[in-house]
């Protein structure tokens, strides 16, 4: 019942959004996503011991790993929803959007949320594939929402490149299916069943299958060099949607990769996936670093920073020790919270200065003090300063790396991170401080926006200073699942 409610609530909210008038619609959505977050919390709490919950005759299945991702998605969804309200209202007042379009946004937002929440709950790998593809299709409209040349171009690239990626992932899924059928004669794509028999699967087929999976879902997760669509889509989307794309959508694809990696590891040992993860992780951080240095667009800057962080998460999965995997999950959470905070701040800045260009956005402290504070907190957290969560997760990942004796990769990672640090500090400090251009008035931050900023910033500090015990239990259970051993 719990799993079913998590899937059905956003669908109901989408239907209500189509029917209700504006004011009621806002309240209904807020209620729906508040309840969703509460349910995600209950799921996470209930599941901690390490057992799975099954519903609908096995179609829906949740273990600690799914519970963690559900929690992540519903948290950022709620933040994005609260932020959307004043953001869209401004667009409506300014004539950039019509009231009808705002209703369309609410419907699409909920459909998008439903597809994302579905991914971690589906046991069957074929169904999971469909859900991931549906996330692309649902969010494509949100990327091309303003219907300008740039946004339509971004949406097109997004749909086409991600669909090709996803198609390759389907090829990988079919190969896994073939390997299972050839080995045991059982025709199934149920993850829980395959996991039980993974030990005897043909390693050659599994290695090819995993490559397709990694390249395929990796395209959607934003791993370099398949990331080319990401800066376009993330910068052109409506800001609340940018936060969702960067904060959680990338991670739902990572979730799919993790599920397949678990099977592959069981079939052929962890060496193979580990090397690939470390390579793609480092490569993504390096590519992101280079593009960050030369970046001129505020939102693209943040998009490249997402590629960097996905790289770190994947790298940590490659290190593969319990501490590293714990760190990678924790990093996924920290990044989601931080990136939403910075994207929201960027959205406000872009609206105020009416430009995406970094060299024209100066003196945020004077024009939008709250936004500037949020951007500063987000910036410090993004580059990995204490006392924020990302500092802790990076520390875990790096120390796990040294513990395992992977000195070369660790040093490379540190080097690339230093580049990223310099680039982000250079660009964003100029925007936050600096002198405000003439003709731009101060003020104009809605109360609900301030509320979102404060709660996300507090959450970041909380994650960095002391991790709540239930969250820690959940992360331990999830990483134990992934590594298949104790912690």
């Amino acid at each position, binding site marked *: 019942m719990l799993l079913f409610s998590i899937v059905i609530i956003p669908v109901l909210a989408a239907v209500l959004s189509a029917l209700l008038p504006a004011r009621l619609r806002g309240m209904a959505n807020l209620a729906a996503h508040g309840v969703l977050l509460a349910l995600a919390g209950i799921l996470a709490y209930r599941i901690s011991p390490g057992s799975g919950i099954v519903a609908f005759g096995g179609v829906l299945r949740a273990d600690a790993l799914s519970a963690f991702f559900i929690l992540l998605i519903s948290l950022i969804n709620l933040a994005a929803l609260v932020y959307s309200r004043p953001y869209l209202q401004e667009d409506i007042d300014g004539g950039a959007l019509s009231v009808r379009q705002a209703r369309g946004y609410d419907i699409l937002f909920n459909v998008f949320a439903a597809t994302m929440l579905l991914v971690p709950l589906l046991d069957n790998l074929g169904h999971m*594939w469909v859900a991931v593809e549906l996330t692309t299709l649902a969010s494509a409209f949100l990327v091309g929402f303003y*219907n300008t040349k*740039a946004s339509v171009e971004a949406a097109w690239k997004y749909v*086409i490149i991600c669909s*090709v990626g996803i198609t390759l992932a389907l090829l990988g899924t*079919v190969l896994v299916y073939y390997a299972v059928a050839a080995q045991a004669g059982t025709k*199934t794509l149920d993850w829980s069943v395959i996991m039980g028999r993974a030990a005897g699967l043909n390693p050659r087929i599994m290695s090819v299958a995993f490559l397709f999976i990694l390249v395929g879902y990796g395209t959607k997760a934003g791993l370099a060099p398949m990331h080319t669509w990401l800066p376009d889509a993330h910068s052109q989307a409506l800001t609340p949607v940018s936060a969702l794309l960067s904060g959680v959508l990338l991670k739902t694809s990572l979730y799919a990769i993790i599920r397949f990696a678990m099977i592959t590891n069981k079939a052929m040992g962890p060496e193979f996936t580990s090397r690939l993860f470390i390579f793609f992780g480092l490569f993504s951080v390096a590519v992101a670093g280079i593009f960050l240095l030369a970046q001129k667009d505020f939102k693209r800057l943040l998009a490249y920073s997402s590629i960097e962080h996905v790289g770190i998460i994947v790298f940590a999965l490659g290190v593969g020790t319990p501490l590293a995997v714990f760190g990678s999950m924790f990093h996924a959470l920290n990044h989601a919270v931080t990136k939403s905070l910075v994207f929201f701040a960027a959205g406000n800045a872009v609206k105020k200065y009416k430009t995406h260009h970094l060299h024209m956005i100066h003196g945020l402290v004077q024009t939008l003090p709250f936004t500037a504070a949020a951007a500063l907190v987000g910036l410090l957290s993004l580059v990995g300063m204490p006392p924020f969560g990302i500092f802790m997760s990076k520390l875990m990942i790096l120390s796990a790396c040294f513990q395992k004796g992977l000195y070369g990769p660790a040093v490379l990672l540190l080097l690339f991170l230093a580049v990223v640090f310099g680039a982000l500090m250079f660009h964003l400090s100029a925007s936050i401080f600096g002198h405000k251009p003439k003709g731009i008035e101060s003020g104009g931050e809605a109360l609900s926006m301030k509320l979102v900023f404060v709660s996300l910033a507090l959450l970041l500090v909380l994650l960095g200073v002391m991790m709540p015990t239930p969250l820690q239990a959940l992360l331990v259970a999830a990483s134990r699942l992934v590594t298949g051993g104790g912690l």
Partner: protein
Amino acid sequence: MTLFLLTGIMILTYAMLVCHRIPALIQNFRLQSLFLFLVTLDFAVRQKEAGVFVVAGLLLLVKVILIPSFLNHLVKKIRVDERLGLFLNPLLSLIAALFLTWGAAVFCAWLVSDSPAVVFAAFVVSITVVLVGFFIMVFRMKALTQIVGLLVMENGIFLLASSIAGGMPFFVEIVIAFDVFVCAIITGIFMYRINKVFTHIEVHRLTDLKG
């Protein structure tokens, strides 16, 4: 019988590369999907499984009837230049396709060395279809050719699923078919929008976003 159908798919795949005009490409895709339907039907008859018949019927409905008709309708509606815009002429494209086929054969020989000849052939044809689909996406200029290329890639994977693994679980096939349909519609809508905002659908001219 299976070999005959596989040969048919192979010929149609190559034929896509010599198409010069959009309607011809769509028609070719329709025929390829028809052969895919026949492969699945053949399998259904031999297995005598009701589920596989349903999947075959769905393929016929979605890939042979609905999607090509929708694309044709769209092409008429946006009234663009019907030429595909080739980055690589048909002869060179065919030569490239031969190399792709050879590569697919080498790859499959390594991957499934000890399988029966029919399975091996099906493997090679499927991988070739996927590769050619990707080739069409890259070396043809129009947005529409990217949609068709994507659909061709998916045809290759469907072929692989039904000929080597004996078809995926019933419910999975149904949702995937549905998803392919939705994907075709949505990409179609975006193509329509591109034409509206840019007044052309040539993807190599979409270069506003960089860096």
